[in-house]
């Protein structure tokens, strides 16, 4: 077991810098998820921790030791690749035992470790098969099994579930959580799927274009995103943004004038703002209310989707860059073409200044 500490990690491929100085403390036994859009450098960061990419500048410590120049084999890490990367010429058992074989572990011990991992992952009946005779989900289990067998100090997962179908993904997600509880080992998990991040993580690291945008627990990110990017990235369907101007400011409220002239109040500490300054108002689709009056926003209903457990309404609102997405009850009976007014509960609103940074929301609990 070990902690992982990153200090000013930079990585360049030729002249192009991909990681622009990452600082991060991953505690022993913690489950940390790197999340961010495709191409933001998640895999690159994970691969620098694994030792598959050298670090251009900065320091990497695993278990208290500086590992910048340690080859992957000696870092005590195990990695699960997005593409599984199984050894196609070996059976499942041989795949899982490969690391131990290299380490010179006795046959007896090897078999025990493989059997134990196979039991945890329920792949005991597959041990004699070659990878090509396995389904995607089974291959994924083998890849995870190969990592478990070595009893690493740190597990690294690179989008391990992105090749599985939706149902299997949910099942594997639960199993990975269970695995973390049983092994209690430090895990670093990369995904572009914010649902995976929210459900798995102790702490989430939101990456964007090679920078850390915010680090925090899933609920922290959900309730107190530091900027527009994090706010838009965490939560599904994503947060609605409406442009406006600050009309009044206070230590626990801000009034925003929207494009159509209507006023909306948000419970945020706006004392640092300037009256007349441009701001972006944010509200999550699930936080709108339909009870009549005060703090409302109205627009034309473009489309309605009935999902069964809920109804999603798309509203055309002046000043919003995209349609406003509103999550309503399953029984909601609005028709496209109608004009709809929805209430924005003050304490549910988010507010961002012109630079995209969030005003601190007033904590109501």
């Amino acid at each position, binding site marked *: 077991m070990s902690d992982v500490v990153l200090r000013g990690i930079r990585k360049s491929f030729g002249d192009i810098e991909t990681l622009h100085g990452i600082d991060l403390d991953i505690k022993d036994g913690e489950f940390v998820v790197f999340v961010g859009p495709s191409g933001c450098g998640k895999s690159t960061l994970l691969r620098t921790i694994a030792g*598959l990419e050298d670090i251009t500048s900065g320091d990497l410590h695993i278990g208290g030791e500086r590992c910048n120049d340690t080859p992957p084999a000696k870092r005590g890490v195990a*990695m699960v690749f997005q593409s599984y990367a199984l050894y*196609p010429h070996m059976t499942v058992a041989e795949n899982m035992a490969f690391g131990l074989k290299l*380490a010179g572990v006795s046959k007896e011990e090897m078999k025990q470790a493989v059997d134990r991992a196979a039991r945890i992952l329920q792949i005991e009946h597959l041990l004699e098969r070659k990878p090509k005779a396995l389904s995607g989900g089974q*291959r994924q289990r083998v890849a995870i099994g190969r990592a478990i067998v070595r009893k690493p100090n740190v597990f*690294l997962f690179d989008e391990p579930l992105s090749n599985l179908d939706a149902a299997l993904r949910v099942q594997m997600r639960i199993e990975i959580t269970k695995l973390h509880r049983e092994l209690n080992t430090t895990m670093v998990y990369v995904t572009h799927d914010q649902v995976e991040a929210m459900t798995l993580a102790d702490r989430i690291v939101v990456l964007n274009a090679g920078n850390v945008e915010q680090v925090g627990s899933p609920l922290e990110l959900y309730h107190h995103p530091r900027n527009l990017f994090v706010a838009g990235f965490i939560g599904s369907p994503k947060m609605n943004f409406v442009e406006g101007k600050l009309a009044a400011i206070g230590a626990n409220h801000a009034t925003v004038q929207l494009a159509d002239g209507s006023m909306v109040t948000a419970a945020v500490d706006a004392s640092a703002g300037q009256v007349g300054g441009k701001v972006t108002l944010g509200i999550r689709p699930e936080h709108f209310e339909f009870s009549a009056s005060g703090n409302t926003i109205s627009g034309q209903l473009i489309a309605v989707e009935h999902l069964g457990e809920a109804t999603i309404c798309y509203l055309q609102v002046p000043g919003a860059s995209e349609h406003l997405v509103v999550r309503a009850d399953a029984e909601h009976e609005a028709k496209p073409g109608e004009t709809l007014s929805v209430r924005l509960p003050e304490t549910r609103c988010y507010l961002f200044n012109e630079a995209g940074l969030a005003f601190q929301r007033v904590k109501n609990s």
Partner: protein
Amino acid sequence: MAVVLDKSHRWRVVAAHLGLICFIALIMFPFLMILLISLRPGNFSTGDLIPSQISLEHWKLVLGIPYQAADGRLVEPEFPVLLWLWNSIKVAALSGLIGLLLSTTCAYAFARMRFAFKAQLINSLMLVQMFPTVLALVAIYAIFDQIGGYVPWLGLDTHGGLILAYTGGIALHIWTIKGYFDTIPVEIEEAAKVDGATPFQAFRYVLLPMAVPILMVVFLLAFIQGVNEYPIASVLLKQQDQLTIAVGIKMFLYEQKYFWGDFAAAAILSGLPISIVFLLAQRWMTSGLTAGGVKG
């Protein structure tokens, strides 16, 4: 084959088979002719297609067994054909193995490592190899003459020298193997490295086993090349007992008289090791060895 087929499909299958049979006949015809020439008494290149009389005289000669000629005298084999065959096998196998070793490691470097002038190097390898060997014969002769002055077992008239000369021609093999390495996802070796393998172990235990089919193909090509090669061997080798079969076989064709029958028997003999090596290598040349490693 559970696919539903059209009626006309059967006729297409028949037509395809007919075409294939014609093709095979076309290829087999010269071989059958050689076989017949070697079994016909006397040394003629032409004659009845179906010989009226089968004679093993040429085969006996080639295999080093004296035989009783029609006029009653005992004909002693003139040339050590079996020794030549052995020389050929030795040279071809050793140059194939050494060439395989060099080209595999070389291809690994070109496929997986980063170093300066990589693209230029691999392209110049190809260009140099395109230079016709025949044009370089004089140079090759001079080089091995010189080498022989310092290292006798690599000089003229030695098998060592010939093997060295053959091993020089691996640029094409490097290209072939590199091309195959390029199709194998790097992640599989990376997984091995994270699993605790040194770069060499990742190469030896992971990459190499996946590349066995192409290695077999390359060895086979090098082996065939070694058995069949004529120009270099004819320049480097002079003593009769050092010759390879491709060079030695020419001895049956004098200025004044061509011993076509003996020539044919020896030619078939020289094809034997190639066929055997091919049959042995075939079981390793399975496809799909890398299937299932990564999600496609």
